């Protein structure tokens, strides 16, 4: 047993020191403000903001979600106010509360990503950029950047050039070999990797006999996908042990978070769990601290990737 107060919850993600390894997940906590009644955003490792694009976006038609067993499908379509409104309203709110922001950016072309990264240079409170490459590449008939190592690398290299903070590439699990994509992103300069984004899924309404989502397919998230997410983190950490990983996918509890750390993540994002429990990111951090204390583990740094090694330290 380690006493609770002694557990070192600090972690380093892509060179950035964070007071807690538990962050929010992009698209699951907006820009943090709505969580204020349920937790203290400054105590989180960071707030990962909803992917922002250059221009305001309406998002898709509704229905935008379907509940599935231990998961959900979403097809929001990256609704958002665009980078200018984000810089004016969202970042200052976080900065005023001394919360760290990991800003997720999304674009349909390398140029859009670069412009976004450029606009964020010098913005207050930005700890890292998370590059959401699970976006269709307009230049290649909508093929998702994250599904092609070259396209992924092009985006990352360009963002890296433009950014003044470390850059995480957010990977999609919907690929034959995630290690190849991960390696391409690292080669292109990514300081770390976020994984995983949602799995492509769909559900059909057995009354209307039509797809439930207006967008037909959507992204599957929640505990249902956790085994896939842990596997991706495991595989990439095994292949690229030096590369920092922000792990996510179905984390509901502190023990779930611990699985990701053991698999090789230096920090984790809590996404869909927030819909179930708005205090989830804070609760997961507490539970993780308790779990480390129970196991006599001094701190987060001691478990990162541990399951690859001997097990019991």
């Amino acid at each position, binding site marked *: 047993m380690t006493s609770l107060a002694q557990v070192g919850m600090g972690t380093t993600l892509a060179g950035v020191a964070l007071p807690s390894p538990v962050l929010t997940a992009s698209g699951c906590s907006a820009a943090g403000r709505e969580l204020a*009644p349920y937790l203290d955003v400054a105590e989180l490792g960071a707030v990962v903001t909803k992917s922002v694009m250059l221009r305001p*976006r309406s*998002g*898709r038609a*509704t229905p*935008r*979600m379907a509940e599935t067993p231990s*998961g959900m499908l979403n097809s929001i379509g990256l609704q958002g106010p665009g980078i200018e409104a984000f810089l004016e309203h969202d970042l200052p709110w976080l900065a005023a509360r001394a919360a760290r922001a990991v800003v997720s950016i999304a674009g349909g072309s390398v140029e859009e990503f670069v412009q976004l990264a450029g606009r964020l240079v010098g913005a207050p409170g930005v700890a890292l950029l998370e590059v959401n490459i699970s976006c269709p590449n307009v230049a290649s008939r*909508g093929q998702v950047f994250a599904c092609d190592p070259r396209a992924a690398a092009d985006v990352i290299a360009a963002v890296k050039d433009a950014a003044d903070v470390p850059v995480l590439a957010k990977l999609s699990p919907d690929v034959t070999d995630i290690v190849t994509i991960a390696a391409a992103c690292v080669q292109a300069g990514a300081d770390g990797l976020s994984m995983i984004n949602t799995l492509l899924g769909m559900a059909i309404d057995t009354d209307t006999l039509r797809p439930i989502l207006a967008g037909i397919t959507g992204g599957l998230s929640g505990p249902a996908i956790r085994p896939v997410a842990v596997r991706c983190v495991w595989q990439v950490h095994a292949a690229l042990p030096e590369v920092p990983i922000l792990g996510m996918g179905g984390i509901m509890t502190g023990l779930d978070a611990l699985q990701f750390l053991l698999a090789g993540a230096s920090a984790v994002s809590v996404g869909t769990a927030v819909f179930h*429990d708005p205090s989830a990111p804070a609760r997961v951090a507490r539970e993780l601290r308790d779990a480390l204390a129970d196991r006599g583990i001094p701190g987060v740094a001691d478990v990162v990737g541990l399951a690859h090694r001997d097990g019991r330290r």
Partner: protein
Amino acid sequence: MTVPSQVRARLVGSEPVGAYHLLTLDAPAVAAGAGPGQFVAVAVGGPGSAMLLRRAFALYTADPATGLVQVVVAEHRPGTAWLVHSPVGTELDLVGPLGRPFPLPAAAGTAVLVAGGYGSAPMFDLARRLRERGSAVHLVLGAATGERLFGADEAPHVADTVTVTTDDGSTGRRGLVTDGLTALVEDTAADVLYACGPMAMLRAVGEIAAAYAVPCHVAVEEAMACGIGVCMTCVLPVIGADGRSRMVRSCTEGPVFEASRVRWKDVGTLPADVVGADAMGGHR
């Protein structure tokens, strides 16, 4: 606006009422400062549940004195089935009060309240508050069948007149809740309308209000994943003060909207003139 709370609320009462179940929960933090039209979001299924998303229910009562809140639940699919079969004593994880309540008029006047099915739940507290402020209240309750009316017995205690309709004529007048509404609005010289119920009904009420140039506040029901404003699933196209339409969250900016602002016929579509529709590519 009240800040919502997340609480573990004990289920202190659960009883069938017609086709519905009336659940009473001990939740002082939620009861304090809740207004009519606001809702609560309840986690369902207990530990080990495969159901991740909370279920939303309009507050029927919220008594700061006793700390109790009540909701009227229609058993629909697994989540609501679990709720209505939960034994008294079950601890429920509750978030609320959420959303914006029905706005009360600055001056006393005449209000017509229209409700369909369990949509009547928020109307009783609304009626009481309107009458406390000196307004006359005319309440119209409708449902498919008599079983699906909620609160017909209570209605005379909170309203000056009560009109009851059912689609099958089993209780009250046969027909739609909106059938006699034009006459009622005219006869009572209503200066505000409130409605809660199915979308088609809200739209019809809104149209009548528009015809008489009377403000009309409606509580919509869109599928919600989070209920707290972070997920963007619950949107509908709403015309803003600047005249431009946006996809607006019904959980935080609603569920109560001014009916004339809602683009009823475009709900479930993406109108080309909505802000940011032009930027939509194939992104999910």
